[in-house]
């Protein structure tokens, strides 16, 4: 055991006592320093908050807007600095140091874009407590027997990565998502052939040849009965042209059930550079800060995305999904991801976010995604308009989240008000996501059906006033149905309380759905009706 004499700056002995240098000292010093960082950050924030309040009461919103972006950027920088510092301190306290994966050159430019560090005690504890035993078993199987054998880093994303980075959430991950480098796949893309399914019209993919790699390891597991239903699929951009990436899907056997896995073999640095795009890192996480944490799952070392990585991924998902949260999006993509609302909630529920007041920050962060895209501009503008609109709503009333909880007779069992607020919002977001998803699908299906009928009637050589009237009546009926769906959401809107900022996560869907989805369908149907009247 090493003994350290206590010495002061002048290298003089302070007292006769001696301090043992052991892991406990390291752990307590880590905690102290992390707390000091947090305290320092919070203290600075509070002082500046008071100063900012004073500044804003003296000025108009137009005047305020001249300094707000700069202040917000600096605050973001301060917050990131404090989070990163705490992570770095935590990293120093870890019992084991991360040895870089031996299979790639850590000095290469693309490897330097990926940072691997041991998960903190907090993250490991949450992973142990919140991820089900079956899920841990499934993760340990595929990571230990497939992805840890790869030459390049991989990472778990999705809910298994999100849950450890949140204090309160009742989500229980039921599937697992992995991202890994396509060079570790072991299949040449030309060896994936698409064939017609014998009992249907749907195409199925078949691998005709493969070499060592993730796919070969999965085939071995399937032969041993550890996984089943192994399948691959080349991914396509918006369902159109292939994008060079591959999705592997399978079910993993655990003690009590089969767990679904989706693993995405993504383009790596070389592939992206060859396409004339920016740097990409060693794996394509789609984020700038490729920070991965190593956790322990049943004794197997597993990489999960860090909080920063999770935040950036959710921001990009919000852009892709909310930017297309309208009728055009549905028509171009074949569907709208109602999950856009859940992404917004997930972002503001991450550890380093201030749940009640981080919407502004989220909207601003969308604007800082580099390079900006058409979708990111639309998503930012749409969310900003909705947020500005939300702030003009009454600050009284039951609140949308509370209303949805009451109507659905859901109670959150906790005495902690903050936890209750977060869990209620999470539930309300899930309720409205399911409801809007179903409404959008039903509306679109019925609209397509009516459009078909309308076209059929136009092409009908034997038109008659009766047939014409019948078509008009079906359209009228659908317009009435759409109006009643619209008014159902209007009733929800009347319950919004803008003093409850968490209401925004639910609110955001409704004006968008009413004005950008239902209204355009009504307008198109009304136009068809008008044309029929002229015949």
């Amino acid at each position, binding site marked *: *055991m*090493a003994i*350290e004499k206590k010495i002061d700056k002048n290298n003089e002995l302070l007292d006769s006592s001696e301090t043992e*240098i*052991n*892991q406990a*000292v*390291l752990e307590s*010093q*880590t905690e102290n*320093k992390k707390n*000091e*960082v947090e305290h*320092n*950050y919070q203290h*600075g924030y509070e002082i*500046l908050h008071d*100063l*900012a309040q*004073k*500044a804003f009461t*003296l*000025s108009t919103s137009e*005047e305020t807007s*001249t*300094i707000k972006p*700069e*202040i917000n950027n*600096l*605050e973001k*920088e*301060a917050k990131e*600095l*404090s989070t990163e*510092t705490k992570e*770095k*301190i935590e990293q*120093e*306290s870890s*019992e*084991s*140091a*991360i*040895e870089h*994966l031996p299979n790639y050159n850590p000095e290469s430019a693309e490897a330097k874009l990926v940072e691997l560090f041991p998960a903190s005690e907090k993250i490991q504890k949450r992973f142990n407590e919140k991820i089900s035993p079956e899920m841990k078993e499934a993760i340990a199987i595929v990571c230990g027997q497939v992805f840890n054998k790869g030459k390049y880093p991989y990472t778990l994303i999705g809910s298994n990565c999100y849950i450890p980075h949140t204090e309160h959430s009742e989500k229980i991950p039921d599937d697992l998502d992995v991202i890994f480098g396509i060079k570790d796949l072991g299949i040449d893309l030309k060896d994936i052939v698409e064939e017609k399914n014998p009992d249907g019209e749907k195409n199925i993919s078949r691998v005709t040849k493969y070499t060592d790699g993730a796919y070969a390891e999965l085939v071995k597991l399937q032969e041993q009965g550890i996984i089943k239903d192994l399948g691959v699929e080349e991914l396509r951009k918006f369902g159109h042209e292939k994008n060079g990436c591959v999705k592997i899907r399978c079910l993993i056997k655990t003690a009590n059930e089969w767990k679904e896995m989706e693993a995405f073999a993504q383009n790596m640095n070389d592939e992206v550079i060859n396409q004339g795009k920016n740097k990409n890192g060693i794996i394509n996480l789609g984020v700038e800060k490729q920070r991965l944490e*190593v956790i322990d799952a049943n004794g197997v*070392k597993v990489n999960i995305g860090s909080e920063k990585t999770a935040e950036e991924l959710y921001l990009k998902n919000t852009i892709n999904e909310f930017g297309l949260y309208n009728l055009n999006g549905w028509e171009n993509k074949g569907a709208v991801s109602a999950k856009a609302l859940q992404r917004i909630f997930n972002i503001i529920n991450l550890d380093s976010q201030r749940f009640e007041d981080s919407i502004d920050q989220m909207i601003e962060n969308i604007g800082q995604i580099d390079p900006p895209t058409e979708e990111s501009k639309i998503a930012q503008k749409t969310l900003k308009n909705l947020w500005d609109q939300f702030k003009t709503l009454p600050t009284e009333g039951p609140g949308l989240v509370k209303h949805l909880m009451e109507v659905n007779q859901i109670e959150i069992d906790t005495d902690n008000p903050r936890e209750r607020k977060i869990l209620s919002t999470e539930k309300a977001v899930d309720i409205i996501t399911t409801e809007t998803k179903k409404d959008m699908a039903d509306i679109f299906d019925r609209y397509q059906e009516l459009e078909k009928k309308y076209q059929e009637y136009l092409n009908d050589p034997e038109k008659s006033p009766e047939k014409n009237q019948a078509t008009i009546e079906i359209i009228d009926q659908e317009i009435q149905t759409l109006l009643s769906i619209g008014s159902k959401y209007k009733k929800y809107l009347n319950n919004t309380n803008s003093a409850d900022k968490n209401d925004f996560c639910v609110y955001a869907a409704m004006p968008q759905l009413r004005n950008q989805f239902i209204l355009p369908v009504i307008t198109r149907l009304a136009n068809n009706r008008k044309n029929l009247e002229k015949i």
Partner: protein
Amino acid sequence: MAAAKLTPAEIKSRLENIDAIYQNYIKKIENIRNKERDILSNFIKKMENKKLTEIRRSIQSEYK
């Protein structure tokens, strides 16, 4: 990525690293906070001067 117990020498070096990380943080955060404070203080000064000018103007027009 094998786990290995840290030796006392390694722990000592980690403690020094933590201190260095913390000192570096303090320097950087102070820099950011100073920038924020300067922007807000200058803005407040500007707004107060503007208010003062407005008051002066209104007094002048009142007593002309």
